[in-house]
């Protein structure tokens, strides 16, 4: 119930409208009018809660004009979780949201493994036949829906089989098992970045982890809660935690910033009003981002061999740096890999503007935010861009290709895995 969500019921009143949120909001930076400021969304939430404002599609539009990047939440002196209010608003205003493409994508692609595989096959065929280029050139999708046309442009190329087809449910540790890790293989990594998933498994395996990757995982639920569908998000969350609970894993790891931040329970008081189910409670404080787990929780195996000299820059995903306070850990990994030189970009922790379906539903706005990021990347003159979120990867990839830049987007773990591989090839490790 909207009015009973703690962020709405109690925390809202803490907003003194100081405007600190204006100074950090990527959307406000582009639009520059007060209605684009996070404090305006807080105010509209208050008016909705107190029935001073009736729900309608105009308010829903305002609620949707937010990246859920948590820049405001992280910086709010009063401690207001603005993103939780926005999510509560979206749920409350779900029936007034007119964006059909977004809903279609969320309910079809980000549903379960079957739907993901189906989408993958379709997309693979579509891209392999070159049909996507024809569609892009003719703009035919634009005749059906502008958003669909945008989605088509934003989707990263898929090549090879989906990751879940390549990964066994159980991967034994190399050497003695120290931890039983549950790997949460997110939808986007699975479909668009299978090599990243394989690198994650490889690195975990080489660090005393037995890796359990459930075959029947569902989406983490973030796209659903972000589009107002709390019921679907709750059902998927329970399903996923049950899978890990039954497998008896010690911890849950994800290489996707958004998945790990969702699984850590940022929105759980909206999903589970009656308290957390046992399976979720069990994993409280046991869900980790991969970078953090590798650098803070275990002693990382440093038997690495240099990879060909390469310069990289690192983009902080909002769901890592603002949601989980993870800034140093991925950089530590990059510093560890021999042959890699990290060059910091200006504003590394500034949002890239992707934010899942936001980039589709608000393409122009998203592109403006992306432009700043691409320009910062350009100035580093590096070979690769690294980041720890597949949604950011897609957005950055789109920006790089728009600017005809050859740079690729990788997760730090891919470079680490390459260094293990090199060590293996050189006979340093077996």
């Amino acid at each position: 119930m909207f009015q009973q969500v703690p962020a709405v019921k109690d925390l809202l009143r803490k907003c003194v409208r100081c405007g600190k949120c204006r100074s950090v909001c990527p959307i406000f930076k582009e639009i520059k009018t007060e209605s684009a400021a996070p404090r305006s969304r807080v105010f509209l939430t208050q008016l909705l809660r107190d029935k001073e404002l009736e729900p309608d599609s105009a308010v829903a539009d305002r609620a949707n004009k937010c990246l859920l990047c948590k820049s405001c939440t992280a910086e709010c002196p009063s401690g207001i979780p603005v993103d939780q209010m926005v999510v509560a608003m979206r749920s409350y205003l779900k029936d007034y949201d007119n964006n059909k493409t977004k809903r279609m994508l969320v309910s079809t692609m980000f549903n379960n493994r079957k739907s993901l595989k189906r989408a993958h096959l379709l997309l693979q065929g579509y891209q392999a036949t070159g049909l996507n280029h024809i569609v892009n050139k003719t703009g035919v999708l634009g005749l059906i829906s502008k958003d669909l046309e945008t989605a088509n442009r934003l989707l990263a190329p898929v090549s090879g089989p989906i990751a879940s087809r390549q990964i066994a449910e159980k991967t034994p540790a190399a050497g003695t098992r120290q931890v039983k890790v549950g790997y949460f293989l997110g939808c986007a990594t699975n479909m668009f970045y299978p090599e990243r998933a394989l690198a994650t498994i490889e690195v975990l395996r080489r660090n005393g982890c037995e890796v359990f990757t459930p075959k029947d995982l569902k989406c983490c639920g973030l796209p659903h809660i972000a589009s107002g569908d709390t019921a679907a998000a709750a059902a998927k969350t329970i399903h996923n935690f049950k899978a890990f609970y039954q497998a008896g894993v010690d911890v849950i790891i994800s290489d996707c910033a958004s998945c790990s931040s969702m699984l850590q329970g940022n929105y759980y008081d909206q999903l589970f009003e009656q308290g957390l189910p046992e399976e979720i409670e069990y994993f409280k404080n046991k869900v980790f981002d991969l970078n953090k787990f590798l650098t803070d929780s275990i002693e990382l195996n440093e038997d690495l061999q240099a990879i060909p000299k390469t310069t990289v820059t690192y983009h902080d995903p909002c769901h890592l740096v603002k949601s989980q306070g993870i800034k140093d850990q991925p950089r530590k990994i990059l510093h560890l890999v021999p042959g890699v030189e990290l060059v910091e970009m200006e504003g590394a922790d500034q949002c890239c503007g992707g934010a899942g379906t936001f980039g589709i539903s608000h393409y122009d706005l998203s592109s403006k935010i992306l432009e700043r990021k691409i320009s910062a990347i350009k100035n580093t003159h590096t070979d690769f861009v690294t980041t720890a979120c597949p949604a950011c990867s897609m957005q950055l990839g789109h920006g790089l290709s728009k600017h005809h830049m050859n740079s690729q987007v990788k997760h730090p773990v891919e470079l680490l895995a390459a260094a293990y591989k090199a060590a293996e090839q050189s006979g340093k490790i077996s």
Partner: protein
Amino acid sequence: MERSQLIANLQTILGADKVLDDKLDMLSYSYDSSFKARNNRYIPDVVVTLTSTDEVSKVMQFAYEHNVPVTPRGAGTGETCGALAIEGGIVIDLGGWDVIEEVDAENMQVQLRPGVIHADLNKYLAAYGLFFPPDPGSSQMCTVGGMVANNSSGLRAVKYGTTEQYVLGLEIVLPNGQVIITGGVNSRAIKNVSGLNLTKLFIGSEGTLGIVTKIRLRLWPKPKSRGILMAVYDDLEEAPKTVLEVYKAGILPSGIEILDASAIKAVNEYKPEIALPNAEAILLFELDGNPASVEWEGNEVTRIVNTRAVNAEWSTDPERMAKLWQGRAVTATAAARLRADGSRIFAGEDISIPLNQVTESIKRIKALGAKYGIGVVNYGHIGDGNVHTAPVINPEDPKEVELANKLVDEIHLTAIELGGTTTGEHGIGAVRSQYARQEHGAALDVMYAVKKALDPKGIMNPGKLLPKEGDNKDVSTSAGS
């Protein structure tokens, strides 16, 4: 004029993309940080987002001709309803006009448009080794235009003074649309006593006399060195005594800030990494200048501080200094963290007291808080007597709101009684004008005369700064409601 006609006319004058009239937009322009705006809705009829002097002039000509109230607005970070359309009409949003037009480094000045954010300006100026010294706590979000309108200052006013000391000239659009330049039409002089000082007349006039569209600021060379001394006290009343002792020793720190026990707790809750020590009070002395003098003064202030403080920490580490200074700067809103079901309110928050009365004022404010059963956080610019007070209440409880209004009124009256003023840097707006006669006596009538001369139709930010004529009561009992 009918609202629809007003909107249509402005669209014709400016083009539709400059005019906001949607209901949700209007609601978004109905607030600032003030307690009064929390309890009332000041919804404008229309908002225009302007980025040229010509546009501002055209809007003013139109408003003047048709008697439409006009309220200029920067970032809306004020605490007094100053940028709110309390009589409806047009809000001119200048926040998007954030252009730094020219840095004249040789003449140590900059020309900029009103929407530039304070922190952005100083970031830009750093490349020239220059800075604009006033340092408001809201540096990251407030506009320089708003600073001029309110004569803002902040943490470094002790040594560097307030905005007015840096404004060399202004471009102003008068209520009738006429554009003037103060401080000399073509002047780049730093010293200038030619003519009546109209620049100072407009600074701090809170948008009631005209609209600032361009600002020429004097800049200072950025000091080469800086250090912060944190003094920790187990008795709040000892802290103000140290401040006087430091001055007596012939030392002028660039800032002296105080945080009481609850302010310390609030900061630690917001940013645990700042890790302020738990104490009854903390003083932060900022010293700047050349490296040798900063070191000498640091030692000297440490020696003085140690006679009363239980502990002192001297730091020249940029990271630690940034944390300490940031800690103080965020206290204003972090105070909300002290009560799970509450929020700080911006009301009675800005009294300014003679230095030798600061201890007494803090004692009295604490007693007033106890009298009304309201927790009050004390923090702020103790170096110039501008100690901020932050009542923390449940703002959604009407009883607490009523008590808070009484408390706020008494805080204001206490300030006047102790020989101070109701506001040191936040301004009057629509929340403190009821004390004007008491504070200014016959000078208030001269203020009316000035206002009438420049704004005969009373369309320029009406309801702000001056009480309505004939409504000049000495005191009020409805301070913030």
